[in-house]
């Protein structure tokens, strides 16, 4: 949209980045706080939007340009024909941050029969939940009652005993697990997805607004370069990154953020070519699409997700042009 194409007074491009309190956004916060974006000519404005689909819609409308969000939301938007964005990367792998926690007194899956499980519908935990239940011989439609909860409400609802079990990702997950006597029945690392692909059920993906990227591809390339520079910094300074995140962006114990961030595997700009292909995350996407479409009937069609992938934008201006976008970079 024309409004955001305007440069700010300092000659900087204004970029609206949207996200939540999830650790996957640390590179953006670092980029802002350490002046990396400014160095590349971008004035990045951070807006809190808790849900993946809301972020994607903000980008689709043209009001935001950049976001990291969950794969499931991206895939269902694709399935409904939203062509307003590019999928440009998968910046981290961080399984083990979301799981199914049951209230005191429920210690095994079969005790969940007839009980009520709460989580935000339409997010990665829905998949985690369904897979875990299925793996333990429970039919999500019949054996348990599922209720929709707002992301932020999950810990309080669980603590108040209004649901028998709940699922959420960090930082809420720690709060669930911290309830005295509560049992973590299963994690996303217990699912088939993790066992097959080594990813969480809904990995983080990087999204750029299509119109914005098409209007000035060079600018988009520059922006991603800045982003990945910030990501490299996070990779190498996890302690300092924790300090950046705490307080302003995440309200959580410093030590907890530290230990959680250590579990993150960050993919840099070069690694993207290794991840964003059929041997990498694309295979996982095919698998997830099968589940969403064939089993859950949550999406009307299986989208040709490769049409949304634009790895051209990952090339840095000084790297010169390459002929093929799909060709993976040489390993190492």
């Amino acid at each position: 949209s024309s409004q955001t194409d305007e440069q700010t007074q300092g000659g900087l491009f204004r970029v609206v980045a949207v996200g939540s309190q999830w650790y996957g956004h640390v590179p953006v916060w670092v980029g802002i706080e350490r002046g990396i974006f400014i160095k590349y000519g971008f004035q990045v404005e951070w807006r809190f939007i808790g849900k993946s689909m809301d972020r994607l819609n903000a980008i689709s409308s043209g009001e935001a340009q950049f976001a990291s969000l969950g794969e499931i939301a991206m895939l269902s938007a694709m399935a409904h024909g939203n062509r307003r964005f590019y999928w440009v990367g998968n910046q981290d792998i961080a399984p083990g941050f979301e799981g199914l926690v049951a209230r005191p007194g429920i210690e095994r899956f079969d005790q969940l029969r007839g009980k009520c499980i709460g989580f935000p519908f339409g997010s990665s935990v829905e998949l985690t939940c369904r897979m875990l239940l299925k793996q333990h011989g429970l039919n999500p439609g019949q054996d348990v009652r599922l209720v929709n909860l707002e992301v932020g409400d999950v810990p309080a609802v669980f603590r108040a005993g209004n649901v028998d079990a709940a699922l959420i990702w960090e930082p809420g997950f720690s709060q669930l697990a911290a309830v005295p006597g509560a049992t973590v029945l299963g994690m996303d690392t217990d699912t088939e997805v993790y066992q097959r692909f080594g990813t969480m059920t809904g990995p983080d993906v990087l999204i750029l607004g299509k119109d914005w990227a098409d209007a000035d591809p060079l600018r988009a390339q520059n922006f991603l370069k800045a982003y990945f520079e910030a990501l490299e910094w996070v990779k190498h300074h996890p302690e300092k990154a924790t300090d950046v995140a705490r307080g302003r962006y995440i309200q959580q114990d410093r030590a907890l953020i530290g230990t959680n961030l250590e579990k993150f595997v960050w993919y840099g700009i070069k690694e993207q070519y290794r991840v964003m292909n059929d041997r990498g995350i694309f295979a996982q996407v095919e698998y997830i699409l099968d589940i969403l479409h064939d089993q859950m009937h949550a999406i009307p069609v299986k989208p040709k997700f490769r049409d949304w992938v634009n790895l051209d934008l990952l090339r840095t201006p000084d790297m010169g042009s390459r002929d093929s976008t799909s060709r993976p970079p040489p390993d190492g």
Partner: protein
Amino acid sequence: MDNRELGLWQTTVIGALGLLVFVGSWEALVRLGVIDPYFLPAPSDILRRMLQMATGPEAVLAHDIKMSATRVLTGFALSALVGVPLGLAMGMSHWVRAALNPVVSIIRPLPALSWIPLSMLWLGIDEQQKYAIVFMGSFASVLVYTTDATVRVDEILIIAARNLGASRLQTIRHVMLPAALPNILSGLKVVLAIAWTCVISAEMVGANSGLGFRIWTAKEWSDTGQVLVGMLSISLTVLILDILFRWIEHILLPWQRGATRS
């Protein structure tokens, strides 16, 4: 301004034409590619989705409407049950009115949505919580409309009844109530629509069925068509309830028949 009143037939035809123009140009804009169907699906698509949801193997729509209607009507009935007597008391006594007005003014502007945090704390996420949200979102309005209807009762009718020998209680029973009834009913009609607007708030958290729930999950799944089906279902349900309500009015207020404005 234009002198001629329109007959029912004419009104229906013109209304249908108006709707047709609205829906037609919407359809055209989508078909011609001016509007991206992802942003706003064509009416025909919405209708197809609606039929699918109404008849498909799941047939969720009827269930959703039933669930939402139960929540709305329960919350609304509670509002009316508490609000009408209290409103009558406020309308009949300057003292009660003066005493309760400040509290009512504070509660009234609070949207149903703002009661989500507190209602969850107090009542959890069960059906009671949903009733409570609808109740809190509509109760103060019932109170205000009933008070108003009662205050508006022509003083001369009360005096006339007392002059004919009616006791205080007889006056309330035979005069205040029937005289305030038309305005109370039309107030309740407005509040019923307000109660329906609360269902989306009520079903935001802890629901697994209902039109509000459907809209929220559809949003998460990026299913704009289904969002619109949900919205349209609310509109249609309110329309039908409105017709029902008018029929009840017609039954309850025989002396007002024919005295209605277009």
